[in-house]
């Protein structure tokens, strides 16, 4: 399973620790909300909205350098637009992996 890391963020920050901390704080703040919104829409079968939520989460996925998971999210987003939930459990695993990583930051 692909592991999240902060290499993108560190490269962008170029030693600016305040910036790094700020972005991590925003990830900690925004990601749980985005995840909750996605789960709510998915459970209520509002798949178009759930697809939009996946789209939003994709930025966090890419900031945490999860390239393969980003591709999976893109596919899941497309599937949801057609009410196809085939990749739901794989995407849930991605969300859980991200949650675990973010919690230890």
């Amino acid at each position, binding site marked *: 399973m692909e592991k999240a890391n902060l290499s*993108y963020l560190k*490269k*962008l*920050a170029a030693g*600016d620790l305040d*910036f790094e901390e*700020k*972005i991590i704080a*925003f*990830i900690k*703040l*925004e990601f749980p909300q985005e995840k909750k919104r996605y789960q709510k829409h998915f459970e209520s079968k509002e798949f178009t909205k759930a697809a*939009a939520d996946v*789209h*939003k989460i*994709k*930025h*966090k996925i*890419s*900031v945490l350098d999860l390239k393969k998971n980003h591709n999976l999210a893109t596919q899941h987003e497309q599937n949801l637009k057609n009410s196809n939930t085939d990749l739901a459990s794989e995407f849930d695993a991605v969300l859980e992996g991200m949650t675990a990583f973010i919690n230890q930051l």
Partner: protein
Amino acid sequence: MKSILIDDEVMALEILKKLCSKVKELEVVATFSNAIDAIKYLNSNQVDLIFLDIHMPDFSGFDFVKTLKNPTNVIVTTSEKDFALEAFEHDFIIDFLVKPLSKSRFLKAIQKTKIQKEVPKLKNDFSEENTLLDVLYANVNRRLIKIDIPSINLVEANGDYINVKTSKKNYVIHSTLKKIENKLPSNLFVKVHRSYLINIKKIVDIQDNSVLIEKEIIPVSRINKPELLRRLNLL
């Protein structure tokens, strides 16, 4: 270059601010978490460059671009590569950055903006010429009738005919909405629906997907709504 940033994700705005801080010529004058607030700001402020997220709830980045009054360079930021083709169909969009943004790609986009600023823009004076004419002659029952353009409330398509409605009188004319649209000043009239052209000055109020013109409720289609909003002096 005065710039504004539009993105509904706080983290994305922060990353953009950081990248903008690397370019001396860039001054971020405002940031917005939704497009509507940015439209209001642009009604009374001019900027040189807009960084715009495409995927936003309610009012997308593409809807926003359609509302731009003045030629302003727009750099689109998105997590979706597939939007690129659509993005370049819009005149103001000069570059397309895929998230996560990298410094090198960001700087290339800024370079493009600088080059773009140096290219003189062709001005289309056609609509301004139209405003000089304030009367329209239309064939009604084999007579050419003079219609005072500012008095027109709206024009409604009705099969092979159009109904030109003023406060005092309605004229049924054998013509199309497209033809009369080309004859009317574009600064005064806006198409709000495939069957309706309205005089902006006659709007009483706007609610959801309709406008009130005198006592008549006119539908506003989703596709025409951004253009209508662009024309209004929103507070």
